[in-house]
């Protein structure tokens, strides 16, 4: 069969070039490696070599031709045992099919909703949430004792339990061993598990994030503690470019079961560089799981799930929550499903969606709203990726109003995402626009009065809830 020689690309971005010179003519015998032609681009000249042997049957583009598109057939080679004189130039590609009939057009000023009836079905076809089995929290057996525990202890217990059960699990980070963690989350772990499994590291988040990624691919189950996620910005290359996508790029060969955890978001007067919420950053990355719990029971149950996950997990804690106490069911193995939101307060009038420390703000606002006769439902997303949009949409269906509360910046936030989901998939149930209550769009100031003004608070949530309730 004749071989088509096509205008080659010097680089993946080259679109056209000049066929400067032919070094062969029709009828010439060529063998692999022979230079056939010279091609010029604005950047370089390259020699175009034969890959296969054969006879030049036809030259289809004359030398000196400018702007030859990459992929154009420029010559034909007759293969072995083929008569060069019978080789035909390739036929032109068939014309593209005619475009489908134009859809009705909504002309501005000519009346609204032209064609809406037809397009509506397409736009709102998500109206029934998928009826697939969804994960749900395991039932807590009757009579289970509840124990009051801080979030800090809950996180430590989750790690300790998983380390007891699986000797591949280890903790690594700055100050995690002797010092027991900058925020004392790894308290007692060194004593129980020793320095080979609770490892103090040099001060380079970049280094130990990369190290952990390699260790995970090497068969261990690392928990990498960042002193805060603010310091993980230099590690984000390993988290996103390696941990999150190596499995995909390797065709499923190189799995990376690792947990990156540490405090995230604003604490108290630690300034602009130490007060940032990275939830939306990581939640935008395919391949990562992102968890941001609020209370102690969720912190424990979800961290255990994260450590068992086959996927890389970014686990976002909050410094201000570490010392807060909550009831935890006293179970041997309290594990919660990843990707499932929780309704922390039922209500009928407006849905307040939040995660992490924002859930506390939303609950406080709900109490205040109750005093005004507005019955708010509060949803704790718990997992930011994959996002449990079904729980949000089901609640929207009931209350017809959504306010998202987020301790973080407004632009490209989780609040933005929830707002988009409500509009795309819940448009017909909305009685008011979705409102975002977030921090001010500024680096967080240090001064106490300014910091307070820049952060979300219950009063602003109440105001937003009133607004969407038209009260």
């Amino acid at each position, binding site marked *: 069969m004749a071989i088509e020689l096509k205008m080659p690309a010097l680089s993946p971005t080259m679109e056209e070039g000049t066929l400067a010179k032919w070094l062969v003519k029709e009828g010439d015998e060529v063998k692999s490696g022979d230079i056939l032609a010279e091609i010029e681009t604005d*950047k*370089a000249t*390259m020699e175009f070599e034969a890959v296969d042997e054969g006879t030049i049957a036809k030259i289809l583009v004359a030398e000196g031709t400018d702007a030859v598109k990459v992929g154009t057939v420029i010559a034909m080679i007759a293969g072995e045992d083929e008569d060069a004189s019978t080789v035909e130039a390739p036929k032109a590609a068939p014309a593209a099919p005619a475009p489908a009939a134009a859809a009705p057009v909504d002309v501005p000023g000519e009346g609204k909703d032209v064609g809406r009836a037809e397009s509506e079905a397409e736009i709102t076809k998500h109206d029934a949430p998928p009826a697939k089995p969804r994960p749900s929290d395991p039932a807590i057996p009757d009579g289970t004792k509840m124990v009051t525990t801080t979030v800090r202890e809950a996180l430590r217990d989750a790690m300790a339990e998983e380390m007891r059960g699986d000797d591949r699990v280890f903790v690594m980070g700055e100050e995690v061993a002797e010092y027991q963690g900058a925020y004392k989350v790894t308290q007692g772990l060194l004593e129980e598990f020793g320095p080979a499994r609770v490892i103090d590291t040099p001060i380079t988040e*970049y280094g130990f994030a*990369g*190290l952990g990624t390699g260790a995970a691919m090497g068969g261990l189950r690392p928990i990498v503690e960042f002193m805060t996620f603010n310091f993980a910005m230099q590690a984000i290359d390993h988290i996103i470019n390696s941990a999150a996508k190596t499995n995909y790029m390797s065709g499923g060969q190189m799995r990376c079961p690792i947990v990156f955890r540490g405090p995230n978001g604003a604490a108290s007067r630690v300034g602009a560089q130490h007060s940032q919420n990275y939830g939306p950053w990581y939640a935008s990355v395919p391949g990562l799981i992102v968890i941001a719990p609020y209370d102690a029971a969720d912190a424990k149950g979800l961290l255990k799930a994260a450590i068992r996950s086959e996927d890389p997990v970014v686990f976002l804690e909050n410094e201000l929550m570490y010392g807060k106490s909550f009831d935890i069911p006293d179970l041997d193995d309290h594990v919660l499903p990843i990707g499932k939101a929780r309704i922390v307060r039922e209500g009928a009038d407006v849905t307040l969606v939040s995660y992490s420390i924002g859930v506390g703000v939303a609950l406080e606002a709900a109490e205040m709203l109750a005093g005004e006769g507005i019955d708010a439902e509060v949803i704790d997303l718990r997992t930011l990726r994959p996002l449990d949009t079904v729980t949000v949409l089901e609640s929207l269906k009931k209350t017809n109003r959504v306010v998202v509360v987020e301790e973080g910046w407004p632009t490209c936030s989780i609040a933005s995402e929830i707002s988009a989901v409500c509009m795309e998939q819940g448009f017909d149930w909305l009685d008011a626009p979705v409102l975002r209550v977030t921090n001010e769009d500024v680096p967080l100031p240090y001064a106490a009065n300014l910091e307070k003004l820049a952060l979300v608070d219950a009063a602003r949530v109440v105001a937003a809830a009133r607004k969407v309730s038209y009260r």
Partner: protein
Amino acid sequence: MADRQSTPKSNLAPLSLHVPEPPSRPGDAPDFSHVEILKAGVTPRPAEDSDPAAMRDHAYGLVRVLDDDGAAVGPWAPKLDAETKRRMLKYMLRVRAFDDRMYRAQRQGKTSFYMKCTGEEAVAIPATMALDRDDMCFPSYRQQGILIARDYPLIDMINQIYSNSADPLKGRQLPIMYSSREHGFFSISGNLTTQYPQAVGYAMASAAKGDTRIAATWCGEGSTAEGDFHAALTFAAVYNAPIIFNIVNNQWAISSFSGFAGGERTTFAARGLGYGIAALRVDGNDALAVYAATRWAADRARTNKGPTLIEHFTYRSEGHSTSDDPSGYRAADEKTAWPLGDPIERLKAHLVASGEWDDDRHEALRTELSDEVKAAGKEAEKNGVLGHGLHQPFETMFEDVYADMPWHLREQMEQALAEKDAKWPK
């Protein structure tokens, strides 16, 4: 410059900025007069458990085994039998044949991109042969020799390069960014040197598990400037990780000569000294020297004596990639003026000089390998080439993002399949 202090505060001479400039540029005669080449055989071979401080000179010298007459001389000469050396030569010739054909295949539009390792064949192949088969390699992008020396099927390499229906990486990676867990070949990263700390992590995991496998990793001299490099060396030193760091100093990072990575000031091997890591500087075009150095480092790592940094001094004979044209930035004849020669010719000369090889057998082998690569190429083309429409089923796009496909990806996949069925009914 505009903001320069207009009235000097003293009569000091003004400061001047140094911008590195290579010894020769296009149009100049190539100049390697700055390169000091030690004689083969003169570098002593320390014990594998030596204290790095006791072997500092090795970071500035050059371990060489093959002399100008093709004899293997000095304490580093590995005692390899002729059969092993012929196998080494065959692997190196196979890589070269593969590179030649794939380069031309790119020019024919069968792939968008290719990178040759011409002149650097001795960096990866003897090193791989000196490692154990199940040691884990974290390569950069010019170590296709690792896969070749571990007998990875050529057709699978080509399937990956053509991103076709049999691509083992399912059409998800740039051409040449191979990955094979089974062959101890970690996925190549397009973000330079990320493999360095990952390799240390792998090595530490191996040590933590009480395994016997070590890790080896490679980067170019240009990417030693990355923070990864320094973080990796810090960790390897702190935890005495069982790892071999290889710096392939081929003197060019695309168009930036090694001076832009600090090569004017010291050797790249000397980077190890500041970390207390044993360092060897090796003639990277001397297959037997690379084998011996890697074996030394592997024995050291495997007996818990610590990491080693090896600088392979070599020369990138061709362009950086198919997208590069080096005639725009370096002297044309550097390849021939380069004093350490061609690694294949040098190993061949050694085998011929010792009566274990001859020109006829060499030519016959070259032809055999060229035919073998050609046949593999033809076979791979049956699975498609770039843009020919034979590729992975598109729903595979949604697979392997997570261990289990989450509901939102499943929904996207089902929607995409439904749209496909609507547009192109079966």
